[in-house]
């Protein structure tokens, strides 16, 4: 709807830069609308876009739009999703406004006669406005980003479980420790050699990382050879496993289920078959599972 509004306001917007004889017709026919300063009217129009989006979200059942992304099945993943959703709305709103301006100019100012248009080449106030507004937007986005990344990267002093994840060509090794760092003697790793084609991630050929629901676990990530990417799409999270670097981060799953995982960082010949899966189960099931799998 608002695309049409901008189109409607176009000639008024054009008044900002210059007045040529052709403008008089517009000014005359649309005099009642010229009460507000044209710049204010544009700003009001542009301000309407996010408001419309907000209204759509609220009426749409208070759920943030996904734009195709996962909502996240961990607390950390959900924090990421919230940032993503807001940023995507803002970004697309900006894109739609700029696309609107592009399409408006190419349609409205198509060559109709051989007259040479007015040769203006600058307008300092307008240039200052479109420099300052992005600076303010960047400030807001940066603030939200820092808040969000601090939450995602936060590490609990006493996690419920510590899991050492080692990536190697082309498989994964998961070994469990309790909260004080004592080995639980539970080791799960890729059994099969890579085949010609990747199987579903939940296939028994690939290892399964088992996590307790509603408690915070620590992942200690390392690599035995080249760089790998420990990537769980539904968790909205990936981290490199690198030789010589130990990465630590926490997951707090909130939804039970089985999720696919995969090496995301290219690591050589069988990179596409370096799969695993993650099963999130209740705390009780988890402790039963631990004792059943002790070697």
């Amino acid at each position, binding site marked *: 709807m608002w695309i049409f509004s901008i189109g409607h306001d176009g000639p008024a917007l054009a008044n900002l830069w210059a007045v040529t004889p052709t403008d008089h017709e517009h000014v005359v026919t649309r005099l009642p609308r010229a009460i507000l300063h044209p710049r204010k009217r544009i700003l009001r129009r542009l301000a309407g876009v996010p408001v419309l989006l907000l209204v759509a979200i609220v009426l749409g059942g208070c759920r943030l739009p996904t*734009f*195709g*992304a*996962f909502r996240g099945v961990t607390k950390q993943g959900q924090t*990421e999703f919230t*940032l*993503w959703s807001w940023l995507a709305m803002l*970004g697309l709103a*900006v*894109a739609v406004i*700029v696309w609107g*301006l*592009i399409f408006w*100019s*190419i349609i409205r*100012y198509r060559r109709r006669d051989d007259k*040479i248009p*007015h*040769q*203006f*080449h*600058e*307008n300092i106030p*307008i*240039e200052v406005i*479109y*420099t300052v507004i*992005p600076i303010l937007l*960047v400030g807001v*986005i*940066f603030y939200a*980003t820092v808040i*969000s*990344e601090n939450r*995602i990267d936060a590490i609990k002093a006493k996690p419920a479980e510590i899991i050492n994840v080692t990536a190697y060509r082309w498989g994964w090794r998961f070994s469990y420790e309790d909260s004080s760092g004592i080995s639980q003697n539970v080791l799960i790793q890729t059994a099969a050699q890579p085949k*010609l*084609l990747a*199987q*579903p*991630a939940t296939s028994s050929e690939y290892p399964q990382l088992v996590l307790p629901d509603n408690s915070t676990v620590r992942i200690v990530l390392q690599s035995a*050879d*080249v*760089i790998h*990417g420990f990537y769980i*799409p539904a968790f*909205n999270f*990936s*981290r490199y496993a*690198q030789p*010589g*670097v130990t990465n630590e981060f926490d997951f707090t799953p909130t939804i039970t289920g089985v999720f696919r995982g*995969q090496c*995301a960082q*290219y*690591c*050589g*010949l*069988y*990179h*596409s078959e370096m799969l695993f899966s993650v099963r999130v189960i209740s705390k009780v099931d988890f402790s039963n599972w631990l004792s059943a799998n002790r070697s």
Partner: protein
Amino acid sequence: MALTIDRPVQAEHHEEEHGPSGLLKWLTSTDHKVIGKSYLITSFVFFLMAGVMAMVIRTQLSGPDNTVVSQHVYNELFTMHGSLMLYLFAGPFAFGGLANFIVPLQVGAPDMAFPRLNALSYWLYLSGGITMIAGFFTVGGAADFGWVAYAPLSDAVNSPGAGPDMWIVALALTGFSAIFTGVNIITTVFYLRAPGMTMFRVPIFTWNMVVTGILILIAFPVLTAAIIMLWADRHLGTHIYTVSGGGVPVLWQNLFWFFGHPEVYILALPYFGCVTEVIPAFSKKPLFGYRGMIFATISIAALSTAVWAHHMFTTGTVLLPFFSLMSYLIAIPTGIKFFNWIGTMWRGSIEFKTPMLFAVGFLVVFLLGGVTGIFLAAPPIDFATHDTYFVIAHFHEVLFGSAVFGGFAGLYYWYPKITGRMMRESLGKASFWLMFIGFWVTFLPQYLLGLRGMPRRIAEYSASTGWGGLNRISTFGAYLLFLSVAVMMINFYVSWRNPIPAPDNPWDAGTLEWGTTSPPPHHNFNSIPPIRSERPVWDFNHPEHTTFGLHSREHASEERRD
């Protein structure tokens, strides 16, 4: 300074007639126009090769469990597709080809500052390119560690063989070629400008080439140093990037991206320059915010040296907020450029010839690439999408958007000047629309695939992932892109077999290159119009429609200079 507008008479000598002709002329020439054309043709051949590789890649991915090529061949293909497109096409096409031909013309110079160095650049580039391609003919095949060659995957243990070594040598050769061209262009613009051509009257295309040249001087030596160390690790027993000998693998990533992110702008800024020439010419207006454009370009270049670690957010070894903020800040000068382009079209008289279609196509596609770039500059969002097809879609949108849409805009725009012939409008428009539609069909599904968790550089995937449908659409789009380039090749062929002679200034454009013949004579200009603004030819042809005189402030400074 002597203000001779007409060149001394001896420049009228037809030197070409005394020199060699035919193939020997091409091999021995130091004329910037011949070298520029060599660059354009060579890089276009590499573009076609890399494009064919992309078609094989897309065919392999078109459905689950495909075995069109083996995993090993697939890994070679995506490595060489990326390497060819980035090192051998996108940079050399604009900076070696278009810049070589156009920059001396735009500043009113008879040639580049160092013609022999210019020829050396080209031959280094050609030999680098051949070396890289020749890797396919070695026993172990071409390099297969990705165009970024992350250590320790690229070391002698994990990637043995001659193919990777040839890739390293090729990078050194093309790197030196780029450095020499950078020196040449900077010197040409600083020292060989025609009388009256002050820096603030130099067209934006040339300005962008100067800034690109400076970025090349900052970035390429770092790459060269990094690959020499990689070579030493592979052959001389050093342990710079290997943990076993006390080395630091992540050092490669820091060095590579310190080159790699400025490189992204080395690839993009020249094409911004093309678009910035095309839009004013077809809107019949001067560029809106000329000085703002220059400062925006300079700040993009400056910021691009401080954002390299946004490629490394998921390594866990970098300071996230700093690199995030620096990356966000690039949006501001880029936004200024966008509004300046729109401001130039605003209240203009826009004619949609093929170059203008490609330029507007660039605006439309680059915008979404820029916006998704903002998303990726947020570390949490990068955690979720790093190394997925979301990133693939993002950088194809910006790189394809600039190098292909922007590059073709420039190519269609300057083709009459370079060859003295016109291209066919109907074929040009057909190739544009095929490309514009094919582009969205190819890359929009890839955003969604990335958000659904499809990692990059996987040779195959199982049907259980549910990625088959979107991949099929994307592959269909890629075939449309192929068709579009085929139509463009037909256009070249038609203009070659059945030429329509081009007038000197077919678009009624304003910059100095349109003030000489098409194609230009041996030393470019027989006479030069007075230069009073950044579009001297326009001022000469339309004396009642100049920009000076309208604005008193500029008018005053104009008088002071006189």
